[in-house]
């Protein structure tokens, strides 16, 4: 016996009766967009106002003396030099330690490690490292570098701590950059007689360079801006000297800002704002460079998503 299926074609509603419904939906959509855009403008606006507020508060204090003097109990003499130099020392040292470790780790994970569970576990844990709050790295630094390795509150301890903090950023962006290098590059390289190491260093890494550099710049911007881990390892103090060795006590821009912002006097709050301008200038420079390199590379590779 054949079962017959009767397909019932529903009656098409008359188009005219649908118009009000459609009009309502369109109005809703327009309303939603209006609210959303207003909301976005408000948020951008607030952020802009806050940034401008800081700029206005700080600009009067941003003098050449400010940039070249040590901090002082007198606001008119106070300056940001040890903090600025300390910050630069910090990112140079942090970069020197985290870039090789990060890039080589990523190279190992992507090019050499067998595709097994251990590798996935390693990748997972590296990426989990970025979920640990910054202050925990500070406690880690206090426990391992300051106490256990007896480095005291030196720039070395500080950069070691920050290196661990920013390492996941470098590893993950390098891994992703390496993944994007087309297989054909590798195969061509090997076909021309390169050893694996040569293939990696002369073909894959240069091709992945924009992604890698972009990640490095982001990592350095992060290292520059974080104050919590450094406060925890004991960098909050009056330091009037630029560091001359890696074992010296130090201060950085973020901590100087924290210290000045804790003072109730309006002058010191203005100094803090000026220091924020300096900090943001460097951080924005690094971040914008990172973003520009990344988008240019994507465009060269052939289009954004």
């Amino acid at each position, binding site marked *: 016996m054949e079962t017959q299926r009767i397909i019932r074609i529903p009656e098409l509603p008359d188009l005219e009766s649908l118009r009000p419904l459609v009009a309502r939906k369109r109005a809703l959509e327009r309303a939603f967009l209006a609210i959303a855009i207003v909301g976005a403008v408000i948020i951008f606006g607030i952020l802009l106002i806050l940034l401008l507020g800081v700029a206005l508060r700080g600009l009067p204090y941003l003098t050449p003396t400010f940039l070249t003097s040590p901090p002082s109990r007198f606001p008119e003499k106070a300056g940001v030099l040890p903090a600025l130099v300390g910050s630069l020392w910090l990112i140079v040292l942090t970069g020197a330690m985290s870039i090789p470790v990060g890039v080589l780790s990523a190279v190992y994970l992507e090019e050499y490690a067998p595709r097994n569970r251990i590798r996935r576990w390693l990748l997972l844990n590296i990426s989990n490292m970025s979920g640990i709050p910054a202050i925990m790295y500070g406690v880690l630094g206090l426990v391992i570098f300051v106490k256990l390795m007896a480095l005291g509150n030196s720039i070395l301890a500080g950069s070691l701590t920050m290196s661990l903090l920013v390492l996941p950023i470098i590893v993950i962006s390098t891994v992703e950059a390496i993944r994007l290098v087309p297989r054909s590059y590798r195969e061509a390289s090997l076909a021309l007689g390169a050893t694996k190491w040569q293939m990696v260093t002369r073909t894959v890494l240069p091709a992945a360079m924009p992604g890698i550099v972009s990640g490095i710049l982001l990592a350095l911007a992060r290292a520059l801006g974080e104050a919590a881990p450094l406060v925890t390892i004991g960098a909050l103090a009056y330091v009037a000297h630029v560091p001359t060795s890696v074992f010296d006590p130090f201060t950085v821009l973020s901590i100087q800002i924290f210290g000045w912002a804790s003072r109730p006097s309006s002058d010191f709050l203005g100094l803090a704002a000026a220091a924020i301008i300096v900090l943001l200038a460097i951080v924005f420079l690094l971040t914008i460079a990172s973003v520009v390199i990344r*988008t240019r590379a994507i465009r060269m590779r052939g289009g954004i998503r």
Partner: protein
Amino acid sequence: MGVTQTRRSPVTIAAERLIESLLPLFVLLPLLLIAIFLAFLFTNAFHFFQQVSLREFLLEPNWHPLIQPPRYGIAPLVAGTLLTSAIALLVAVPLGLIAAIVLSEFAPLRVRNVIKPILDVLAGIPSIVYGYFALVFVTPLLQKVFPTIEIFNALSAGIVMGIMIIPLVTSLSEESMASVPTLVKEAALALGATRLETTFKVTIPYALSGIIASFLIATGRAVGETMIVTMAAGATPRITLNPLEGVQTLTAYIVQVSLGETALGTTGYYSLYAVGLVLFVLSFGLSLLGRWVARWKRSE
């Protein structure tokens, strides 16, 4: 000079092999340090719990390990963390999600390609800058609106934290919404749905796990935030739902204790690690959960 050479010196070959064999160490080094740190954290927290009963830790409504007579109830610190984070999420989730929707579903490609990099730059603003905002701009403003507000309060810190997290929520949510296959979206549109309907009835449910993941990661970030709360939320551990009052968060306590130095071996000393453990579990747990939820959908 080319790579196409017929003979390579044994020295070079040996050197390359050496480097290659050492590569795994580079990955293991940081993980080893973290492992050592976690071991230390757990050991010291364990010492703490040898001296303080778990019951007191969880049920006692007061926290002052260093004032006589000491009290070791973690509830006030957790309450402080949750209050400030809740306020932050109340700000960041709606605004961030709406921004993500507009960005991924409505904005023309050109606008998107300008806004997304700007979001990345905004996400890079250090948190002490936000702390400064809270202290110098937001609190005085709030004082005009709520005359009874305390000078150090949870609301100011929470609002500013929320603003800080918006770019994070937006970019993560936008990514998961943009990865919904266009075919599905177009099918909905073909069936007569407006873009708004498609977004809410199709795209968001499809990308839900990614969106929830972004909320969880943002929460983890808020829970772990230190500078904003240290500068603006205060240092009074108390259990309260009133955002106009000052509170102390887990992170702010860690800063307070590590600034001074308590005697080795005392309960006060170990309290740092007990609080650190709680913070680690909360913040890391949330991030982990977020990542897990995101992956869960993709395997479907």
